[in-house]
């Protein structure tokens, strides 16, 4: 369903994604794990036509998203890491706008919107402006919106960030349900290893722009002799903390500055 070959993305001298290749089969739940700044979001942006790759090949359901953009966009839904709602419109209007953009047939539109808003417990607040929503409610609305047009592939970029355990549980239950009943292929990133272990069929671990390991959760644990996925993850990516926004050169400059001030 998703095929990526030798994908590279450079921003100036900085290489955010270094020659990665992987395949996601139809109906599979694939987790992309990595520390902050590892290149997860950049990869998702390239897969979803927001960013064009420097080189390499991508295939989504047999379509090349760098060429057949609209056809490719029709195949997937995405829940972004950071908000993408229109805060000046109501929850219902946001859903409606999405339904129109994705050409959800008028007949099923209202019914499906109601069903999803009820599922994520936003129906009572449907006529309130999104700007009055809490962080968790916004997230729930975004997730509901991602399901609206029943895509073949669902991209979830850290969808559970800032959610309470109840909503998280509900989200993954629904994702699994969709995956089982509609054969939706799911590509997700998360920082919560327990979530990845619970839902993902296969996992790729990415660090410094490159894939360091791939396989089922079981294989990854065996490969690193770890008891949990979290241990396996730390074994593969090290335990140093990453800074997402600053490049390595910036960090060096900062260190240099600190030293010169001390003297």
């Amino acid at each position, binding site marked *: 369903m998703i095929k990526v070959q030798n994908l590279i993305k450079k921003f100036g001298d900085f290489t955010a994604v270094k020659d990665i290749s992987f395949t996601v089969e139809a109906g599979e739940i694939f987790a992309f794990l990595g520390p902050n700044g590892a290149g997860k979001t950049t990869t998702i*942006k390239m897969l*979803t*036509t*927001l*960013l*064009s790759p420097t080189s390499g090949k991508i295939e989504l359901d047999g379509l090349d998203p760098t060429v057949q953009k*609209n*056809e490719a*966009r*029709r195949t*997937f839904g*995405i829940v*972004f890491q*950071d*908000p*993408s*709602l*229109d*805060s*000046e*419109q109501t929850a219902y*209007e946001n859903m*409606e*706008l*999405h339904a*129109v*953009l*994705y*050409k959800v047939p008028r007949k099923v539109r209202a019914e499906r919107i109601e069903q999803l808003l009820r599922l994520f417990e936003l129906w009572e607040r449907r006529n309130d402006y999104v700007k009055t929503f809490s962080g968790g409610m916004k997230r729930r609305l975004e997730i509901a919106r991602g399901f609206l047009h029943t895509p073949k592939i669902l991209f979830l970029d850290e969808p559970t960030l800032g959610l309470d355990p109840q909503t998280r549980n509900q989200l993954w239950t629904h994702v699994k349900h969709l995956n089982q009943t509609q054969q939706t292929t799911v590509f997700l990133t998360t920082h919560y290893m327990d979530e990845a272990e619970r839902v993902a069929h296969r996992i790729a671990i990415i660090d410094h722009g490159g894939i360091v390991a791939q396989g089922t959760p079981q294989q990854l644990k065996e490969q690193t002799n770890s008891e949990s996925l979290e241990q396996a993850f730390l074994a593969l990516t090290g335990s140093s903390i990453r800074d997402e926004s600053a490049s390595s050169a910036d960090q060096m400059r900062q260190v240099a500055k600190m030293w010169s001030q001390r003297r």
Partner: protein
Amino acid sequence: MSAIYILWLRELKRYVRSRAQIVASLGQPLLYLLVLGFGLGPVFQKAGNGSYLQFVAPGVISMTILFSSIFSGIAMLWDRQFGFLKETLVAPVPRIEVMIGRTLGGATVAVIQGTLILIVCLIAGFRPAHLSLFPLAFLFMGLIAIVFAALGTAFGSVLQDMQGFQLIMNFMVLPIFFLSGALFPLANLPKPLAIITRLDPLTYGVDALRGVLINTSHFGLALDVSVLCVIAIAFLSLGGYLFSRIQL
């Protein structure tokens, strides 16, 4: 088509819902209209040019439309910041439709703003020369709005942050306004200024509005319409091209 409609509707909803913004954006044109209209009135009259209020009203209406439509394009910066732009860019809709929906929405809002100022002008004592030509004024207001909403979209597609906004304001929007003949007659200008005003798209918009509202057109309506249409097509193409190249 439905994508264009829903994005157009969004711009309109946002406008109607932000009452503070409506009032705020009418403040500046009102100042120009009342202070310049009545302040320069006596001098203008003595120079033998008739009523300055009559003369400046089409200019102030054009200015309102210029500001409103360019800002609607630059407002894309907010959508970029708050993420909504992404939602429209991953949708399976040709980007040109997204761009047209936004641009027409911005243009419609600008025409509404212009109409509000026109009403204020009428209250302040402005009288159109021919009532029969009055409906044509809306056609030209629409043309001006489309030209600059498209230009605004082009700016909005290129700008990454709010710093660029001041640059556009001081080096594009204000010169377009001041060099358009909105505030002064185009006849007998010094040569360099005469040339520059002819390069300003808004000049033809103001001139056309004067043609239909107070029956004094410098270039003639036919030339005004042709120039505005050509520029509208050029800016729409430019805006469409730059918008289609946005990367996030």
